[in-house]
């Protein structure tokens, strides 16, 4: 262990509540708790605690309290505790500091500075319990216009249409690969997406063969830099294909699934030898320019007979608007933008916390640019990275998104507590782990239902908010920035968001 480090969490056990049932000991994946039979007493090593709260939740007598460790260095706003601890860790290991989940730094969260509108007097609000309220959304390229053949009474569409995917709510599960997450977690997402009529994203780890028939129609399959598990059958099993260029949590960085996590089934799914490291290069080595991207897009379309929309996912970086425009012109049907706060299973902390720009600003800029160039309807925009609640979904759509990707929110619904230790493979909640003892904690039937509940709760809330605005179809909110106002934002921020200040 790190000799100069303070523990991150303090464990407190109220002795007279403890009944020595040893639940905490069994639940903990980092061996914090242990039982001394001679003394008939529970003890703990608190330096191993990651604050996942599993024990506190499962303790039948509420005897446990896990809190950030109170020990403090001399207060210093520049050299704060986190900086000091990181320095000490590196001094002891000489390595890159890894972390999991999303950026936790206090960058401005624009969602919390945007407020929504509602109808008063001049137009009526609509009651979603009495009137239909429609969230159905299409993802894919739309033509500029429809040519229609009016033959007497028969009306025929002459224009050729690109394929679109329809979803029942503008919320899609973000890319989380089998390998990064457990089979149980992966399957829970697939089951929930299917039942609710939305989509899940396989991430770059392939789609297990046994899931293709049942869940392929609800899967966006990824084609990432490692090309794991990509073959014709994989592509054709899906309803949409996503080329992963970048990820909000680690723009410009590849991935690394250590060999010990590559179990037999993962190996088959990824099409790599059992137990070998799965390395995703930082770039896709056949894409060094926009023309190359275009070639891959069309290669994928050819491979799937132009039946599936192709998405390109990028991290929100400084020139995101220009890049997105290039992507649409290269032939993508969907542009997915992953912002600064997007999650990850493992990323260097320096990158997670410092590279990229906030989703809200990126999204507003992309939507504006695509509209200015007259190509906004040629693609759908999927916004990802830090969508925490239904109101964030509304705000993202009002800024211009067609739908949102949720990753972290879905994990939390499954049990995740954002302990950020996904990269250790010891997720006590059974999500980010390949340890069967841990992953069997998730029952896909039950966890899937939790995800469905989440989608349904958010959808109800979205309907309420839409109704309040006097809108009964989600498409009428899309890019409708008149329904947003900024609070506590500077001029330049309002300008970039294209949103008036409250009261303006």
């Amino acid at each position, binding site marked *: 262990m790190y000799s100069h480090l303070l523990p991150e969490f303090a464990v407190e056990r109220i002795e007279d509540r403890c009944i020595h049932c040893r639940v905490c000991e069994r639940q903990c994946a980092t061996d914090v708790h242990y039982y001394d039979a001679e003394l008939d007493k529970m003890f703990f090593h608190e330096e191993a605690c990651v604050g996942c709260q599993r024990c506190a939740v499962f303790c039948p007598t509420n005897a446990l309290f896990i809190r950030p460790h109170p020990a403090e260095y001399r207060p210093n706003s520049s050299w704060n505790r986190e900086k000091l601890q990181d320095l000490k860790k590196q001094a002891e290991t000489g390595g890159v500091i890894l972390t999991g989940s999303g950026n936790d730094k206090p960058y401005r969260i624009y969602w919390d500075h945007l407020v929504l509108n509602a*109808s008063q007097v*001049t*137009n*009526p609000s*609509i009651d979603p319990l009495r*009137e*239909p309220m*429609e969230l*159905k959304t*299409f993802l894919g390229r*739309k*033509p500029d*216009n*429809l040519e*229609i053949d*009016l033959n007497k009474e*028969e*009306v025929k*569409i002459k224009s050729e*249409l690109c394929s*679109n995917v*329809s979803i029942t709510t503008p919320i899609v599960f973000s890319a989380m690969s089998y390998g990064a997450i457990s089979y149980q977690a992966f399957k829970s997402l697939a089951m929930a997406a299917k039942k609710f009529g939305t989509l899940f994203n396989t991430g770059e780890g392939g789609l297990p063969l046994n899931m293709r028939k049942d869940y392929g129609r609800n899967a966006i399959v990824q084609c990432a830099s490692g090309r794991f598990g990509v073959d014709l059958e994989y592509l054709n099993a899906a309803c949409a294909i996503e080329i992963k260029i970048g990820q909000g949590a680690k723009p410009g960085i590849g991935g690394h699934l250590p060999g010990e996590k590559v179990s037999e089934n993962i190996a088959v799914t990824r099409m790599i030898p059992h137990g070998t490291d799965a390395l995703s290069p930082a770039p896709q080595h056949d894409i060094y320019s926009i023309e190359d991207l275009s070639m891959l897009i069309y290669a994928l379309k050819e491979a799937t007979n132009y039946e599936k929309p192709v998405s390109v996912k990028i991290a929100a970086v400084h020139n995101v608007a220009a890049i997105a425009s290039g992507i649409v012109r290269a032939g993508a049907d969907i542009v997915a933008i992953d912002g600064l706060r997007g999650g990850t299973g493992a990323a260097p902390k320096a990158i997670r916390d410092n590279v990229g720009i906030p989703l809200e600003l990126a999204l507003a800029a992309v939507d*504006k640019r695509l*509209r200015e160039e*007259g*190509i*906004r*309807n040629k693609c759908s925009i999927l916004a990802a990275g830090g969508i925490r609640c239904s109101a964030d979904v509304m705000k993202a759509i009002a800024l211009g998104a067609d739908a949102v990707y949720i990753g972290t929110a879905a994990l939390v619904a499954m049990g995740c507590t954002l302990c950020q230790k996904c990269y250790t493979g010891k997720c006590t909640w059974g999500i980010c782990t390949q340890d069967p003892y841990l992953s069997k904690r998730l029952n896909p039937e039950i966890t899937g239902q939790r995800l469905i509940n989440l989608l349904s709760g958010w959808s109800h809330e979205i309907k309420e908010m839409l109704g309040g*605005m*006097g*809108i*009964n*179809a989600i*498409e*009428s*909110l*899309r*890019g*409708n*920035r*008149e*329904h947003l106002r900024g609070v506590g934002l500077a001029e330049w921020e*309002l*300008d*970039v*968001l*294209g*949103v*008036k*200040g409250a009261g*303006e």
Partner: protein
Amino acid sequence: MLMKKNYQSERHIPAKDIEACGLFGVMNIRGQKFGALKAIEAIKNIKVRGNGLGGGFAVYGLYPDYKDYYALHIMFQNKDLKAKEKTENFLGEHFELIFDEEIPTNPQVSPFCPPLVWRYFVTPKKGEMEQAIPDDEYVTSRVMYINSYIEEAYVFSSGKDMGVFKGVGFPEEIAAYFMLDRLYEGYIWTVHSRFPTNTPGWWGGAHPFSILDWTVVHNGEISSYGTNKRFLEMYDYYCTLHTDTEVMAYAVDLLMRRQGLPIEIVAKIFAPSMWDIIEHLPEKEKKLYTTLRMVYAPLLMNGPFTVIVAHHHEMFGLTDRIRLRPITAGAKDDLVFLSSEEAAIRHVCPDLDLVWTPQGGEPVVVRLNSEDHLKSLNKSI
């Protein structure tokens, strides 16, 4: 086509006008012309729908003697003669001028701050490079130029054999000012009485709103304004008046004039059926309506509205998909009426043959020499 105003950010675009209104339209389906009286009396009957800050009329079949020429009704704010001179120089460059005169007004009536209103009958004078441009496009872009770049000048209407008369005041005052009942006849009259809640009266801001021979009178507040506006901007329509009516008019222009879709289809774009209903339609219709909604989702007009759109040979009325605003249709012999209230129709035609309330999203299409309006009767409430 239209002029883009460059804003540093969308946040500097002025806020939308909010208004409620009364609407009335009447058409003789045999093309027989009649005077302004019906329109005036009907709109007087629904005075409560306006607040005297705007009224206006559109008349079709107005200038039979000049029916081959574009009739431009142009107002000059504050009777600004410099603006008039500039406009006339511009017109001289781009059009052959056939005839022009001041639109006569009644000196006994003194409305609020009247502008000078002039009419010009013109025909395009295209340069060598411009021969390929259709006349309509040519005229539209010149009209937009005047509206955007010549200060104090504003074009009320620019179609052939039709015209718009509008201003600040109750519609009957505007009618009296322009002496509509004494001087003009037409086979379609539409009229609008305005109740703006946040704009000072400006003559150009009154309705009908017009492009070429298309006129729109509209009532309601469209909650999807931002979505609609942004979509239209991609097709080079830049909203300069910041009203729902303008958005509606541009959408009509894009879909009907430029893309050639019939109103029956356009109605399903502005006020589409619910997915629940679409899903239960026969396969062919299901596909059509699903595709329409998918492709034209940004032109769904969400929120309460009633609109009456007219152009030569056709007038139609439509209300929003869940009928938050009413529309009533009536018919008597060759006359077909549309209005936001039934009372207005009954006031001018107490012995109607038929009167009906169309469903939300079901257009009432009144066409010359046809009985198409009766189609909506079958589906009425």
